[in-house]
Every structure is written in structure tokens, then in C-alpha cells.
């Protein structure tokens, strides 16, 4: 198999962007009853526009920073039937937490609720928007399953619901969907759960149409999980390049894009563009993907705004270098 001659390279935010110091103050004040929701809403809207404008200038997709989201799961856990919001639980990254979703009965999607929670700025440019959703495997792994059904059955149900969700969002003009699924590499599924995960993504894929689906993983060496990742039907499979030796990566599946988390928000140290380009090229040479999607490995909101912006600019530099000089 020969590598595609004109392999396109894209880049974009893959998760929440940090709230500005002004938003930090405002949300704290709201929390303590010292500010009204209206003022904070105005600030959110202005901040989302700023982030989206920066993304528009630098990248392929826009997110608006998902500044209002308290965690990745809340938009589902607070709106779909069967879910409630449970205890504060440590997330995979430094000093961050989420509210564990509790599933008391088989979940039922409530139409319109996910769309309503997307940053409003995305509604103005749905064709460029990257819609974030918690991957079905990760959601099933983190939730407190009280349904009496197996986790595999829950994953399958989530796959079906996400297929419906995609159909609804596609009708609104959205065309890029990222399933953030870090548990696929943190605790790779096997047996029944692996089958259920593959089935869930097949169900989602059947609803994909002409849209782009990205499965984004991070936070662990993806190598042990490639057995599963390489069989996931999706447009792009993302891995955390800061967690893996690029030279050890095997060839990837034909016709699938490669997502590479190359910006590490766990340090303020800026990435070295020369080294990064070299490692990206090595990964691409090994995996031979149809396209390359670059982004921050983990959530950029692990950083304060200033270093986050510096890292975004560095990501844009690396994107430009790869486009200019060729990815592989």
C-alpha cells in the first residue's frame, strides 16, 4: 500500500479552553451569589466569540472553547432521561474533577438538549464547528450503572442514542463530531465490552453520512489499545503522541485519519516545533493515515489563559510547518 500523495493536515482544539481571569471572577461571584447570571452570560458569549475568532484564524474547526461546560459528561447527565448527576469524582488529570453520572434506568435521549448546550457561537458556523461528545465507552466506564443491565448493554444503548443525536445535529448543519474516549487507552476494553464498543461505534458510523467523526483518546500509551482502535469505524482516530514512542507505532487501517495530540497542557513549557514536526512525521510514516488531525493531547483548560494561548499559537506554527514542508 502506498501513502496518499497529498495527505491533508488539519488542526483544532480538542476540549475545553481555559476561562479568562475575568470569567473566573465572574463565575466565582455567581457561585457565591454576588453576581447575576445575566452578567456572566454576557461574558461567556463574548469569551466564546474571542476563542472562536482565534480558532477561525488558526485552525480547521472551531469550538468556542466550551467555556460553560462544567465537565464533559454534564450535558448528557443533566438532560437525558435516566441520568442524574452524582458525586464529585477525580478525573484523569491533575487536580480536576467531574460529577459522576448516575444511570438509574436505561437512558433515553431528549431531543434538542445537546444542541442547546453547545456554545451559541457554533450555531452561527455549524459547518466549521467541532461538536464534543463523551465517547460511549468512557461514559459507560465512569457512570454509576444502577440499571441492572451490563456495562456492555449500556454502551450499546449509548451508541444508538448517539446515532440519533448525530442525525439531529447533522440536520442543524453540524458536520464534525468528536467522541472523547480516553478510557479506550486508559483501560482498553476486552471481551464483551470490546464487542459492545465496536458495535456502538458501528451504529454511530451508520448515521455519520458525509460528516466527520473523530474518536479522541489521550492520557495513556495507545499501543495496547490499537487492536481495538484500529477496528473502530470512524473518520479519524486520535492518539496522544506525548504518551507513545512514535517509532514503535504499527501501520494503521487504510482510509482512516490519524489524530495526534501533540500539545501537552500538563506543562507550560512550549513545544519545540522542530522536535514536534519530526515526531509527527515519524508517526505518520508508521501509521500511513489518509489525513492528519493535530490538537492538544489533553484539555487546554489545565492551563491558565496566557500559556494556553501560547500553546495554541505553537500548534498553529507546527500546522503551518507541516503544510509548508509536507507531513511525510
Amino acid at each position: 500500500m502506498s501513502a496518499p500523495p497529498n495527505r491533508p493536515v488539519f488542526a483544532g482544539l480538542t476540549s475545553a479552553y481555559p476561562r479568562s481571569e475575568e470569567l473566573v471572577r465572574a463565575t466565582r461571584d455567581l457561585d457565591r451569589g454576588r453576581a447575576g447570571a445575566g452578567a456572566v452570560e454576557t461574558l461567556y458569549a463574548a469569551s466564546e466569540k474571542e476563542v472562536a475568532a482565534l480558532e477561525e484564524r488558526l485552525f480547521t474547526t472551531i469550538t468556542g472553547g466550551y467555556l460553560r461546560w462544567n465537565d464533559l459528561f454534564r450535558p448528557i447527565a443533566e438532560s437525558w432521561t435516566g441520568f442524574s448527576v452524582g458525586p464529585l469524582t477525580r478525573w484523569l488529570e491533575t487536580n480536576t474533577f467531574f460529577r459522576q453520572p448516575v444511570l438509574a434506568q436505561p437512558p433515553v435521549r431528549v431531543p434538542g438538549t445537546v444542541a442547546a448546550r453547545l456554545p451559541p457561537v457554533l450555531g452561527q458556523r455549524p459547518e466549521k464547528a467541532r461538536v464534543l461528545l463523551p465517547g460511549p465507552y468512557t461514559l459507560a466506564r465512569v457512570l454509576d450503572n444502577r440499571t441492572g443491565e451490563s456495562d456492555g448493554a449500556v454502551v450499546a444503548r449509548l451508541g444508538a442514542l448517539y446515532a440519533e443525536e448525530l442525525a439531529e445535529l447533522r440536520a442543524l448543519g453540524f458536520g464534525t463530531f468528536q467522541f472523547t474516549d480516553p478510557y479506550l487507552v486508559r483501560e482498553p476494553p476486552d471481551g464483551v465490552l470490546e464487542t459492545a464498543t465496536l458495535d456502538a461505534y458501528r451504529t454511530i458510523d451508520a448515521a455519520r453520512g458525509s460528516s466527520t467523526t473523530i474518536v479522541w483518546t489521550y492520557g495513556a500509551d495507545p499501543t495496547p489499545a490499537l487492536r481495538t482502535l484500529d477496528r473502530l469505524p470512524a473518520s479519524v482516530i486520535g492518539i496522544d503522541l506525548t504518551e507513545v514512542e512514535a517509532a514503535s507505532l504499527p501501520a494503521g487501517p487504510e482510509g482512516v485519519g490519524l489524530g495526534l495530540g501533540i500539545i501537552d497542557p500538563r506543562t507550560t513549557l512550549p513545544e519545540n516545533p522542530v522536535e514536534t514536526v519530526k515526531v509527527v512525521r515519524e508517526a505518520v510514516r508508521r501509521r500511513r493515515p489518509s489525513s492528519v488531525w493535530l490538537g492538544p493531547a489533553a484539555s487546554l483548560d489545565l492551563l491558565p489563559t496566557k500559556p494556553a494561548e501560547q500553546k495554541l499559537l505553537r500548534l498553529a506554527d507546527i500546522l503551518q510547518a507541516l503544510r509548508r514542508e509536507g507531513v511525510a
Partner: protein
Amino acid sequence: MTDALFPTQEIGSLAKPSLEELRAWQEKVPFVDRLGPSGPDLLRGDAPEALPDLRAAFAIAFLESAGLDRVYDGEARRIEMYEHPIRQMAGFQFLGHVRSWDSKYYRKATVVEPVRLVRPYHLDEFDFVRDHARRGVKLPITGPYTLADWSFNEYYLARQPGWRGRPQRWAAQREFVVDLARQALRPTLKALVDRGCRTIQIDEPAAGTHPDEAALVVEGFNEATAGIDAEFSMHICYSRYEALLPALLEAKACRQWAWEFANRDSGDHDPYAVLRTLREYGDTRSIGLGVVDVHRDPVERPEQVADRIRRAASYLGDPTRIWTNPDCGLRTRRLDVAYDKLRAVVAGSRLARAEFASSRR
């Protein structure tokens, strides 16, 4: 230390009351007498410099009045558990706020030079607690692994050549943790022990974030406590403890695991079952058992607390090794809720104590 079963202890910070709130609390939990003859005047006055002492005296009285056997000052003088110790060191720069959850943030620093201790910390606050407490004292201090994990590692990582992948990050983090342990924690712990501090809780809440780094948590703990004679415990919260075992068991000077459980206790899931694993490893250290959830307002009933203790004792196979406490610091709760939760810890422990005593008769 008490000989009775299920002694009770504090575990972390409390909300910081305003002067007005302190005046209101004085009615319910009298505390100004602990500050000597000038205490009432300090409470009546508006001198901002009096507030730290008032808050500390109040927190000690608050915890003792709730009935705890081991107390501290609710960390009344600390900004919080990360920023306060980092500000006693050189080599760091604070950059801005990052989100912990929802609208809760902390100010995060980056290490830009080798870690150096400017001055041992928590000494004055310990002196105050020692002089004003009427029960046993346990001092909480943030551990080196957590200080490193909650910081940005710039200096040590920049020393790694080439692409900074996992092996380079690990090596840099190890250097950082060990430097913090040797250069900052150890001299501080030594100074505290020299002042009479005998019971010290090393807080390592970050331990659960990267279970594959449990050995690093232990290395930091062992480096920090090396050669220091005190009763050390390790507090870890919101973690899958199974994933940290057996690596954690190599923490040599640790005499107690103080862990959170109640937060995850539900009809379908029994978080206390992990204690069975400790038993299987033959670990005989005591447990600081989290029996009330610190992130929700509803106050646990004493019977609920006693049930949690009962389950823990059955998994552990030895009730004499159990201390009871809240899951974590109660800082995010209103003081009236925190007080009721602490009372529930004490009442539930008493209930369980009576049950165990009668079953032995």
C-alpha cells in the same frame, strides 16, 4: 491517643468565617476564652490582624465541641493546601487560575528554577494549635507528589533533551518530586517535630490521578519523612485505591491510611470493600475512615455512619485499627453543615463503639 474503639479525627480545612460569623458562632461554640483576657475584645473589635488567631481558635473549639479526639485549626491561616506551601519556596512563578471543577479554581505555579525552601512553614500555626487545643493534635501538610503534580514542571522538564515524551516526563517529574521532598518537606517536617509536633498527616490527593506513578508518591513520602520520628499518616481522596496497591504499601513511615469512602457509598456499590485488599496484603496500619461525604449538604445519620464503620471493620478484620473522620476537608460546606456532619461522625462512632462493646460481652 484514645484507647476506645473508633476514635475520631479531623482531616482537613474548614470554611473561613467572617468576623460577623465568628461573633454569631461564639454563642454556640464559645472560643474567645482560649485567647486569654484580650479574647473578647478581639472579637468585639474590627482589627483585621486579629482575624487569623480568632479563626484558628474558633476552628479548634469548633472541632473539639463537635467531639473529635484529634483536631487542628481547620487550616485557618492557609490560602489553601497548594498555594500556601508553594509560596514558602523559591523557584516557582504563579501564572493564573485553573479550574478544578465547576466554578472552583486554584492558582497554579510553574517551577522555573530548582526548588529551594525559603522558610519552614506551618510552624507558627502549629505553635498556636499546640498552645490552644485541649485534645490531641494532628497537623496536615501537602505532600511532595501533590505539590509537583499540581504545578507545571518547566525547569526539570527543560533539562530533558529532545522530544518530551513519557520517559522524559517521568524522569523530570521524579527529579521534581524528590527535590520537593528533600529541599522543602523534610526540613519543614523536622522543624515541626522539633517544636513538638508528633502526629502529621501528609496529604497526597494527587496520588490517584496517575496510578502508574504510585511508586513516585511513595518515593516522595519516604524522602520527606526519612530520619524523622513522628506518627505519619497519608491522606488520599477520590481515588481508586486498588490501582495504587501494592505500590503504596512501601511507604515506610506511614502508620495510617486516611482515605475517602462515603462520597461513593451507594446501595449498589460498597467502597469500603477495598479494605479487604489491604487485609489480603497483610497490611496492619490503621485506617482513617471517611464516613461522611464532604461535597453534599444532607447530613448523614449516626446509624448510617455506624453502618459504614461496621462494614469497614468486617473487611479489615480488626475494628481496633479504625479511626473515623470526614472524607476530606469540609471547606466547601457551610459551617453549620460541617458542624452537623462532624457531630454525625462522633455520634456514629459512639454508636458503633457501643455495638462492638456489647457484641464482645
